[in-house]
C-alpha cells in the first residue's frame, strides 16, 4: 500500500510539473462554463430546473472530453518510461508491476477527479446562482461526477494498455487518438447506420442494446440520461435506448474499469525492460 502511495505521489508531482494538472482543470472548467452559458439561454420555459438541464449538457460533453483527457494523461505512462530508460531500474525494486500501475492510476484518477469536480462545480454554481430551483438537480450532478470518474478510470486504464502494447510514446499517442475516435465517435455512427439499415428488425431489438452496453461511453450516456429527468434535452441514441434498464448500464460502467485495469496489467507484464 505504501509503495502504491509512493508511486502515486511521484506520478502526481510529475503531472503537476508538466502542467497536466493545470491543463486538465482548465480544459474541464472552460468547457463546462461555455456549456453553462450556452445552455442557459433557451431553457427558460422547459420546466426542468436549470441544474438538471446543465447536467444533461455536461453529460454529452463528458462523453467526449473525459475519455480524451484520460487517454492524454495515460498514453505516455509506460511507453514514456521505456523510452526514457527509467523502467528497468524501478522494476528491480521490491515493488510489483501491479503496484506501480495502481500508483500511476490513482494519481491520474485523482487529477481527473480534480478537473471534473472543478469543471462541473463551476457549471453547477452558475446554474444555482441564476435559478433557485436548481438545488433539485444536485443528485443528478453527483451522479454525473462519479460516473464520469468511472468512465475516466476505464479510459486511463485503456491508455496504459495501449502504452504498454505500443512501447513507444509516439505510437501510443497515435493509437490513443485512434481508439478515442473509434470508441467515442465512429462506434455510435456505425450503430446508428446499422439501426437505420435494419429498419426495426431483430438487430435493433436484440443486438443493438447489448452493443450499446458494451461500449463504456455509451453505457455512461445511457445511465446518466435515463436516470436524469431532463432526457428531453438530450438527443440521438438515448431515445432508442429508453428501453434499456439502468441496472444494465450501471453494471457496464462499473465493470469496465476493472476489465480495463486487468487488460493494462496483462499488457504491462509482457513488457521486457
Amino acid at each position: 500500500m505504501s509503495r502504491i502511495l509512493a508511486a502515486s505521489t511521484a506520478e502526481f508531482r510529475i503531472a503537476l510539473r508538466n502542467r497536466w494538472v493545470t491543463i486538465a482543470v482548465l480544459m474541464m472548467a472552460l468547457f463546462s462554463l461555455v456549456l453553462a452559458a450556452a445552455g442557459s439561454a433557451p431553457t427558460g420555459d422547459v420546466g426542468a430546473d436549470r441544474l438538471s438541464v446543465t447536467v444533461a449538457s455536461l453529460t454529452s460533453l463528458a462523453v467526449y472530453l473525459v475519455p480524451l483527457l484520460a487517454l492524454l494523461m495515460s498514453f505516455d505512462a509506460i511507453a514514456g518510461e521505456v523510452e526514457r530508460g527509467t523502467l528497468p531500474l524501478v522494476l528491480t525494486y521490491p515493488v510489483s508491476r501491479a503496484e506501480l500501475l495502481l500508483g500511476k492510476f490513482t494519481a491520474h484518477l485523482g487529477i481527473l477527479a480534480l478537473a471534473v469536480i472543478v469543471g462541473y462545480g463551476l457549471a453547477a454554481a452558475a446554474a444555482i446562482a441564476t435559478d433557485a430551483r436548481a438545488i433539485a438537480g444536485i443528485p443528478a450532478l453527483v451522479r454525473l461526477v462519479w460516473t464520469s470518474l468511472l468512465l475516466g478510470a476505464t479510459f486511463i486504464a485503456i491508455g496504459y494498455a495501449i502504452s504498454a502494447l505500443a512501447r513507444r510514446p509516439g505510437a501510443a499517442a497515435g493509437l490513443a487518438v485512434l481508439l478515442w475516435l473509434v470508441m467515442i465517435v465512429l462506434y455510435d455512427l456505425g450503430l446508428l447506420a446499422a439501426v437505420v439499415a435494419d429498419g426495426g428488425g431483430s438487430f435493433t431489438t436484440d443486438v443493438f442494446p447489448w452493443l450499446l452496453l458494451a461500449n463504456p461511453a455509451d453505457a455512461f450516456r445511457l445511465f446518466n440520461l435515463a436516470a436524469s429527468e431532463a432526457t428531453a434535452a438530450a438527443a440521438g441514441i438515448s431515445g432508442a435506448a429508453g428501453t434499456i434498464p439502468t441496472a444494465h448500464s450501471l453494471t457496464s460502467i462499473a465493470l469496465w474499469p476493472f476489465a480495463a485495469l486487468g487488460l493494462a496489467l496483462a499488457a504491462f507484464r509482457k513488457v521486457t525492460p
Partner: protein
Amino acid sequence: MQSLTLSTITKAFGAVRALTDVSFTVAPGERVALLGHNGAGKSTLMKIVLGLLRADRGQITVLGAVPGSNAARTGTAYLPENVAFHPSLTGLEQLRYYLRLRGETPAKAIDLLERVGLKDAARRRIGTYSKGMRQRVGLAQALIGTPRLLVLDEPTSGLDPVSRREFYTILEGLAADGVAILLSSHALTEVEAKTDRIVILRDGLLVADDTLANLRRKAALPIRLQVAARPGSADEVAKKLAGGRRNGVVVDLLCQHDDKLARLGDIAALGAMIEDVEILPPSLEDIYSHFSQRPAS
C-alpha cells in the same frame, strides 16, 4: 554461501546467442569485475541476475533466492548503464520515491545525496543535471537500505577521475561490510586494484575468471625490451640482437618471461654500444586484448 551463483547460463535473442554456458560465483564481500566488448553479453547477464530477463537455460541463485523474487530484489541494488530518471523530478524527490519503494524513511534522502556529493543540487530538477550528476543519483539510490548484492553496469561512465576514486572508495567500504559487488566495465585499467577478481566475456562465452595476477601469468604475453643504442650503432645492435629497429636509436625486442635474463645478458655483452635498456611488462590492455579478442582463424 555465495551471494551470487550462475551455472551454465544460456540466453539467445532469436538467432543471436547472447550468453552460452556462463558459470561463475560472487562471494560476500567480493568485488568482481565483468569485462567485455560492447555486445559481449555483460548487460544481458546483469539483467538475468536482476530477474529482468529470464535465462533460456541454466541455474542462478541470488542471495539464496530465485532472481526477480521479492527476497532477491529486496537484497539487491542495481545501477543501470546510463541511468535515467524523470527529468521533472528533483534529485531529492527522486530519492525519496526510491526510499519509499524500499520501505525506508524518505528523510534519509538528503544524507544519501550528501554521501555522493549532490547535496547542493538536491533541489534542482534532474533534467538540469550533467551525466556525471545523474550517475551519482544512480549510485545514491543503489546505496539505499542495506543491499547485500550490488549490480553496477558501467558505473563510472561519465564520472571524472576524482569522482571515480570517490566511487571506488565507497565500494571498498561496502565490500568490507560484506556486500558482494558485480560491476561491469570495458577497461581493465580502470578496475585494476579496485576489484578482487575479473570475469571476461567474449561473444557470450566466459573466457576468463581469475585474479589479475593469475590472468597475467596465464596470458604469458611477451615482455618488451627497448634498447637504446648509442648514435650510429643502432643498425649493428639490431643485427646482433636480431631485433627490430623502431627509429634512429631504439631497438625493440620481445621475449618470454623465462628468457628475460638471458636476453638482458646478450644486451649487456654489447657494452659501449648500448646507452639504456627499458623493460616493459605486458600492459593491462594487452592482457585484456589477449582474452577478449576473438582468436584469429
